[in-house]
């Protein structure tokens, strides 16, 4: 009945740590939840963009920040291209670097 309201899926790929992992990020998903769902031990704590634990650097591609990262990341981190994976939606395929602790 309400199918016309459902958004058509637009999925992208994320390459993590120079092809160490490759994941699909579905429309509506953020980078962190997609990674966790696909079994990647991405560091995280709050999942709402307040702790900064899930930060990563975007090397290639375009993202859509879902909050202002400057509330959590410091000036150097912002300058270095850090983003918070839990509040990052994708606008294209991307490549990222994250410190994964196994």
């Amino acid at each position: 009945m309400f199918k016309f309201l459902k958004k058509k899926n637009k999925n992208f790929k994320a390459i993590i740590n120079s092809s160490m992992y490759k994941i699909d990020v579905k429309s509506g998903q953020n980078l962190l939840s997609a990674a966790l769902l696909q079994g990647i031990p991405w560091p995280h704590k709050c999942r709402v963009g307040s702790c900064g634990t899930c930060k990563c650097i975007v090397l290639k591609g375009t993202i859509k920040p879902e909050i202002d990262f400057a509330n959590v990341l410091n000036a150097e981190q912002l300058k270095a291209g850090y983003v918070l994976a839990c509040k990052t939606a994708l606008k294209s395929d991307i490549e990222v670097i994250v410190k994964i602790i196994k």
Partner: protein
Amino acid sequence: MKTLFVNIRYLIVPIMSIGTIYGLIIGGLYIWTGVFLFGLCIILDTITKNIHLKADFDKNGNSYGIKSLQYAIMYLMLFVFIALQLALAWRIYQYVNTTAFDTSIIYGLTIQNGITTINLIGAVISAGLWAGIGIIYGHELSHNKKQGFLMSRLIMSLSGASHFTYAHVYQHHLHLGNEDDPATAPRGRNIYMHTWLSHAGQCKFSYDLEKSRLEKQEKPFLSLSNKWILGYIYSLPSVILFIWAGGFLGLAALLTLWIIANFELEALNFMGHYGLIRGKGKNVEHRHSWDNDSVFTDWFFIAIGRQADHHVRGETYFWELDDVKGPNYGIGYFSLFLITLIPPLFRKYVKKHLDNWDTNFANDEEKKIAQQF
């Protein structure tokens, strides 16, 4: 059919809020509609307290909730809450200008003009009770995308509480369960004290957060980039409206509305985490929040009572939050709210639940901290 049911069950607040506005416009005894409906909710919540439902997913694990529809409703609620304030301001205008008591028919509606003092009190309480419910949308939208975040701030600013959006995400979610979070009430604190302490603590945090952000971006504190200041500017239209409608009386009415609304907001914080403990910097687990998921509470408060799941999966939409077997008072928010209003009764009621938490949920570090209370 299931999709329809899952999506319309969260319409209790929109329907009742519009009912409250209707009562304010119709006038006479209908002014008290908001108070009556709130009382009705207490009864419905109490008699359905033992019904607990799980979140609904189809056989593929997909939610029946339709994001675009739920978001449209939440966004539209901003305009419903604006209409609520306009209706109250109109009644205040009538009172101050001693509008004659008569009836008029507008678009087929029989409206009683003029308002007595006692009905004006009813109007302020009705509007305050339902303005405060705006927190459920302000809360949900605070966790989502940028435009949702702004809508959250606008909804909260109607209750003079736009600081909430920042404090909730950047302070409460990070520090819940320890003294760095003013929204977590430690054991022994009552709801009245908590309201002021939590409100002041969150305001201060929002100020500090914005100051720090602006410094990082090398922007001046006194500017329109300052979101802490902007939050208060968003509340200015309400202030101007009520002063225009009734001068000092209008301002007093607005302040009363804000006090009622903020009391409800802090009551939700109070009930969500009272007495629970978490070591500083430790991961947030299900045990660090009280769940209130009886059926009426769940549908009315758009699952805000599924706190245990929400605090672990903060990015999850309300219609996907589920029962995760966290600590649970076993009754809904309306019933519990009544109990919290009488602090000795609340302390007596909550003792067995805290004892259970200490025994069955807390880890060793948390037990040690609990002994200090």
